[in-house]
């Protein structure tokens, strides 16, 4: 899973691309579980659809690097952390609800809920 993760960052021309890379995402998982596989697949799809290639996903397997859990204050897995753009956002779960992921990533304003509360 780790290998897959680094590949997704499109190594060639990485330095040049990073400047225009609007999204920096980190997905924390604990080993290869159905939930982590689902989360990665869901994330990949959302990114492709909504970020137009301007993203970078780093996968952190806490079973291999347990010391990384406290840095981003990880309690639940899977946890997706949006490191860029600021502010930092966290989405926990297998990311199966695309609408909520989009709201969580600020790709979509939580307009529906607003409208509902005003009505």
């Amino acid at each position: 899973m780790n290998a897959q993760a680094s590949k997704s960052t499109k190594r060639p021309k990485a330095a040049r691309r990073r400047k225009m890379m609007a999204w920096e995402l980190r997905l924390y998982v604990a080993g290869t579980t159905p939930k982590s596989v689902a989360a990665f697949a869901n994330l990949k799809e959302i990114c492709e659809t909504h970020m137009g290639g301007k993203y970078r996903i780093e996968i952190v397997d806490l079973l291999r690097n347990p010391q990384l859990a406290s840095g981003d204050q990880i309690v639940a897995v899977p946890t997706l952390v949006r490191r860029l753009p600021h502010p930092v956002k966290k989405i926990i779960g297998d990311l199966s609800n695309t609408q909520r992921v989009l709201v969580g990533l600020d790709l979509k304003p939580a307009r529906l809920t607003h409208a509902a509360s005003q009505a």
Partner: protein
Amino acid sequence: MAAKATPSRAVAKAPTGLPGLDQVLNGGVPRGRNTLIIGGPGSGKTLIGMEFLLRGARDFGEPGICMSFEETDQQLKANVASLGHNLDALVRAGKLLVDYVYIERREIEETGEYDLEGLFIRLEHAIKRIKARRILLDTIEVLFSGLGNEAILRAELRRLFRWLSNHGLTAMVTAERGDGALTRYGLEEYVADCVLLLDHRVNEQVSTRRLRVVKYRGSAHGTDEYPFLIDRSGISVFPITSVGLAHEAKSERISGGVSGLDKMLGNQGFYRGSSILITGTAGTGKSTFASFFANSACARGERCFYFAFEESPSQILRNMRSVGLNLERWIKRELLHIHAVRPTSTGLEGHLAAMHKLITDHKPSVVVVDPITNLISIGDSLAVKAMLTRMIDFLKMQGITAMFTNLTPEGAMEQTVIGISSLMDSWVLLRDVEQGEARRRVLYLLKSRGMAHSNRMVEFELSERGITLHTDGLALQQRTSA
């Protein structure tokens, strides 16, 4: 406390190291299991948990992890520093590890299935790093407000507490007190080996902290509410129970400090380890008798603790100089300790807990409480009697001879408030008698258990030469109080 109760053998104990608490818990919290500490805000949950870790790391060679969900490591450091602990030193020595878990609902979106494996991994990593044996989870309930899926949370917490036990950790888990249920989120359902309840009550503007063991699976434990103190040197629980009539009655006699009084007591004085009550109206010389009693103990090279609830130490020293008694020399030689506090500074239990702690720390052979009246005024009579019984039992168990003074109102000579006299072995009554132009002071031994003593009223004088009892020609009448 002797482990005579057989069930307690089955449960291995991990001592908390907290004075008094281990006694109440009959040795400590269950080793390798989870203990729940419940209390409202400011009841001292975190401090008890931290003491458990710090003392475990420092005194019992058991490294510990503090997983804090509320306070940052900086805050924790400051808090335990106020109790005289150096968190940093233990952390540097690899005996303690603090992991601050921060969860903010507003920053987290939830979508789909998840578990708390992240928390488990953090814990396991920490456990391996310092080979932890103890852990404090403070307050894990924060997860309920930080994460939305209660079903997942409950399943994971159940798994967590089992997991901790499987790892052989002795855990303390703190929880907020709930309405109706013990805890707000029903944690007692998962952590049920040992449950401690902390209470912080304010009665007539005086606050008292209390601790109760609600449950202790497979072990005998004290069932009362025990007052406890949080002060500069940490937490101490006042473990006195009223079951202790098992103290050894000593036959050794010690002087009452006044030769005439000793004469009235069969020429030998009081029994060591007994409780002596001196009552009298204002100005009859109760404190003077108590001071001479303290003086005689110090002169024998014994330690005396003098609790003054009415006068400051310097006032006592000055007044005693006027009757020719030099108490300074004993203070200089550290035989006499005068501890003066206002009775209203804390609740009754607070006082008794403080007294218990001082007595445990200083191990005096003689204690003076002057006067007990002021303590009585700050509690209701039933509570006062219960607490005094505990206090006296405690002193007797330690073999400490105690003298209590008590002010009686004019005209109510032989009444002691709330009948504390029944707790006392000897009762000395002082009074004024008007005779023509003069007032004379007289002393009467109302009772003195287990010894022959005079039943005469004896006149006495206070002068710069001390207390003089007119015992000339006093025939010792053989009267024995049961």
